[in-house]
């Protein structure tokens, strides 16, 4: 769907991007992750035909962005960091304008507006001027204009910019619902946003792609280890006798350390999950996926395991390892 070969972008003598090369297959949801100012927006604007690369070739659906920019634009939906909405227009009028300007006929746009409004959950603000909308609604209207012409490729630049936690959750749900019908590129510097919506990550640093793959692949490649989180109830029947200091948390830690392959165990959260004061969460680092043996060992030792997952901060560890210059 998208092919980039040795693409660079210079502003005067300053290199903002590249050289970068990568491919994105049809139907993928790919996240561009990087700190502010590393070239994410530049890269997305090049793909949306809003910026000319200084060198290299970019093709979208087999079309070169320099040779056939209008054809590429018909196939791309783009949501910039700030939704490009006209404050003097109502949502309905704005979507009508966006659809017509992207080449839809009057009939098609009239048919599409209710569909995209329903999909982005903005039907109730159809007649409201966009200047009266909250930031969350403006972002959704921005997504609606990006998908109004049913593009093959959907580019979302910081889609949860300035949203509150509830709006962020709603935006993620909406993006997931779009995965079936579009190839999606999302840029962000917010790790959970990328982690929870994308199949693959491209990590940018200083204008270059420094890593590519799934979160797990990147973690393994970078650290040769895997992390997991296990939450154990501390008021269970487990024996605390041989633990350091005789505490139940210490007993649990000892059990985990005895499992083959475990490299490191840290008590991450004494209060446990969901505010349960009688539980504790441990981060376990091992050479392989140790969820099954660790769980088995704890249960055999009489401890109640109430949650088991990959470490929540795995992507953060990967990200800091790649762009922060050190190991998390």
């Amino acid at each position, binding site marked *: 769907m998208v092919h980039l070969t040795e693409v660079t972008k210079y502003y005067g003598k300053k290199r903002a991007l590249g050289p970068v090369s990568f491919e994105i297959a049809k139907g993928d949801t790919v996240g561009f992750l990087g700190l502010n100012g590393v070239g994410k927006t530049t890269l997305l604007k090049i793909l*949306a*035909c*809003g*910026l*000319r690369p200084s060198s290299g070739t970019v093709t979208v659906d087999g079309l070169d962005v320099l040779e056939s920019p*209008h*054809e590429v*634009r*018909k196939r*791309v939906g*783009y949501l*910039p960091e*700030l*939704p*490009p*909405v*006209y*404050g*003097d*227009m109502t949502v309905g009028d704005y979507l009508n*304008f*966006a659809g*017509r*300007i*992207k*080449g839809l006929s*009057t009939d098609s746009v009239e048919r599409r507006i209710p569909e995209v409004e329903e999909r982005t959950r903005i039907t109730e603000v159809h007649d409201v001027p966009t200047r009266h909308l909250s930031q969350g609604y403006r972002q959704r209207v921005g997504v609606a*204009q990006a998908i109004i012409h049913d593009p093959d490729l959907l580019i979302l630049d910081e889609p949860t910019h300035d949203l509150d936690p509830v709006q962020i959750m709603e935006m993620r749900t909406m993006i997931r619902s779009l995965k079936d019908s579009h190839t999606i590129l999302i840029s962000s510097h917010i790790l959970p946003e990328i982690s929870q919506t994308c199949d693959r990550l491209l990590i940018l640093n200083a204008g270059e792609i420094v890593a590519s793959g799934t979160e797990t692949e990147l973690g393994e490649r970078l650290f040769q280890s895997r992390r997991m989180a296990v939450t154990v109830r501390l008021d269970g029947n487990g024996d605390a006798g041989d633990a350091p200091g005789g505490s139940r948390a210490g007993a649990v830690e000892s059990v985990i350390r005895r499992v083959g392959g475990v490299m490191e165990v840290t008590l991450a959260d004494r209060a446990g999950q969901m505010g349960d004061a009688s539980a504790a969460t441990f981060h376990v680092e091992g050479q392989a996926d140790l969820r099954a043996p660790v769980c088995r060992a704890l249960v055999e030792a009489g401890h109640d395991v109430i949650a088991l997952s990959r470490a929540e901060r795995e992507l953060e560890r990967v990200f800091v390892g790649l762009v922060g210059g050190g190991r998390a």
Partner: protein
Amino acid sequence: MGATGIIFRREFRAYTRSPMGYIVAAVVLLLDGILFYAIALGPDAGERLSGAVLGIFLYFASGLTAVAAVALSIRLIAEERQAGTQLLLDTSPVRDWEIVAGKFLSALAFLSAITFATLYMPLLILVNGKIAVGHVVIGYLGLTFLGGAVLSIGLFATALTRHQLVAAAIASVITGTLFLLWPLSQNIGPPLSRVFAAIAIHGRHWAGFQSGLLHIRDVVYYLAVTYFFLFAATKVMEAKRWE
């Protein structure tokens, strides 16, 4: 409807929804009304011929039209850049000349609506005095041509920057210079005087319209100025779109 028509419709509605459009219209109509009252109904009015009254009215109306054209045009592209909505146009399958044409035509339509709202004043002269209908028609045609030329200058200025005040300054300097070339041409010798007179926007080329005389030379001049600045605005848009 092509992209030009879609953009025209959006921009024209933007004028009717924004305070700026109404403020410009109100100021132009108020000042035109005051000037007409002073010229046609003032103490010296009785001594003037109806044709002269109409000519003086058109003279002042041309100045107001030029100022209104600058005020209406400076928002056209600078505002889009400032609000970030230019990105919607830049990433849509629309050609730059279509954007420029749509915006120009919307501003011209709105300016013409304001100008034609003053038509009752020449009609009062027509009813109460002795003037040819053709004088009124040609005078208003001249206002439309002059307004279009200044709008194209404003559109060029607004394509250069994202700041409306800077655009206003650029448009005012270009328009002011083209206005001043006529008095300058009267005070210097040839060959420069001939060059200045030929390119002045409000002198030789305007005089015919003011007197009710339609010269093809003047029509071609205003169309050429309009085309030149619209072409320049399109080129600026093309360069900035991929910047």
